């Protein structure tokens, strides 16, 4: 058993007019909660659909729990639970009926897990699925994923449309039932604040390409904003500089690494370092994704540095 839950090699999906996923190399460590981040249309859902065998890759390959697609397709479906953004279940069936229906498909189904989970979750099991609130629909899907004994849980936009209480309950459920028990959770989202709490690995995708994949704590420790003031500050072509925005004699640099050394270099060129501060995930995301956009007249001052 390798320590990777999902790995993709140059995975791609091309549609006639768009390269939805363009040479993706993901490595999702086993046991992690992996946050798959991107804007709308970045390629998140297409990637997930390929992983679950719902659409055929145009190029590249992938492994899920050391299983190869398409050869091991059924085994993948046994061991992976997928909760899509639009939950397509039989609308008129109740939770209890859905549980009984799903039960027969999975060899590792656990009634014990189902019962303990039902007790704690407080989901109405006798109402038709379509009558449930969105929060309860999501909970029911996660309940079935837990009952299925899935080793890997893939959730697309888990908290979209949920109120804050339901969101909070969902995060608790993910942590209690899935994380820390060796199971892997792969969730796509653009709700950065919630991901910042639960995820320990982050992958950022934009225009079908992976911009960054790293342990979240490492990202937090290495990314820094360096604010410097002085004359003739370099609008650097340094590969460590992700962005440099100048106002008057002050300049905000965002660095992916080695901010201390960079600050020392600026100092030796006569600049004053006003501040070196950490960035949160949302700021890092904005800087990384914006960098990929061409320079428009509106942000000429914000000349992006050349990427590494």
């Amino acid at each position: 058993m390798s320590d990777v839950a999902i790995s993709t090699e140059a995975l791609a999906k091309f549609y006639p007019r768009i390269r939805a996923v363009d040479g993706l190399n993901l490595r999702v460590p086993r046991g992690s909660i992996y946050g798959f981040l991107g804007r709308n249309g970045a390629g998140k859902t297409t990637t997930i659909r390929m992983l679950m065998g719902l659409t055929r890759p145009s190029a590249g390959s992938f492994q899920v729990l050391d299983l190869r697609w398409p050869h091991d397709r059924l085994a993948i479906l046994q061991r992976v639970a997928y909760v899509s953004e639009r939950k397509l279940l039989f609308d008129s069936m109740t939770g209890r009926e859905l549980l009984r229906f799903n039960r027969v498909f999975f060899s590792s189904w656990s009634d014990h897990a189902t019962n303990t989970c039902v007790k704690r979750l407080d989901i109405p099991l006798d109402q038709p699925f379509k009558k449930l609130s969105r929060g309860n629909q999501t909970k029911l899907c996660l309940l079935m994923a837990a009952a299925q004994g899935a080793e890997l849980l893939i959730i697309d936009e888990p908290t979209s449309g949920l109120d804050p209480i339901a969101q909070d309950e969902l995060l608790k459920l993910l942590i209690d039932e899935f994380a820390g028990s060796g199971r892997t959770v792969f969730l796509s989202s653009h709700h950065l604040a919630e991901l910042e709490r639960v995820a320990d690995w982050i992958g950022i995708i934009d225009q079908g390409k992976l911009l960054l994949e790293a342990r979240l704590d490492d990202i937090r420790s290495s990314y820094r904003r360096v604010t410097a003031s002085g004359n003739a500050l370099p609008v650097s072509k340094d590969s460590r500089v992700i962005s440099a925005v100048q106002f008057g004699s002050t300049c905000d640099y965002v660095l992916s690494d080695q901010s201390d050394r960079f600050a020392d270099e600026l100092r030796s060129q006569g600049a004053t370092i006003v501040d070196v501060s950490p960035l949160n995930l949302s700021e890092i995301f904005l800087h990384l994704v914006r960098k990929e956009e061409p320079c428009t007249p509106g942000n000429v001052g914000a000349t992006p540095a050349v990427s590494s």
Partner: protein
Amino acid sequence: MLVHVNSSSGVPLYLQIESQLKHAVASGALKQGDVLPPVRKLASELRINPNTVARAYQNLERDGVVRTAPGAGGGTFVADIVPGLLKSEKLRRLKPLAVNVAVEGVQLRLKADEILRLVQEALEELGEKP
């Protein structure tokens, strides 16, 4: 609750947990032999990844702040004040922080006595007499 984390501060969550627990021990809110919440319980309460809590606990154990006992009746406990640690070693551990305070202070153009007073106030808050 014992620990609060701020996920958007940019400071790694495991460091936030470590420093808050160290603070709790230093200020006497946690006494030696006190039991810390199990990794999964704390993770669940804070809605954060259990791996993050585990990492903080591991680092605290490495630093001698907590110790873990395996098996039933086990768990993570606040360790006895490390008697074996030489004073020079304690000072060596603290020095980088002192350097940080000094550098940041000078950077902000604070005077030496103003910086020292800050440290003194922090000590007084912990009930340490000068």
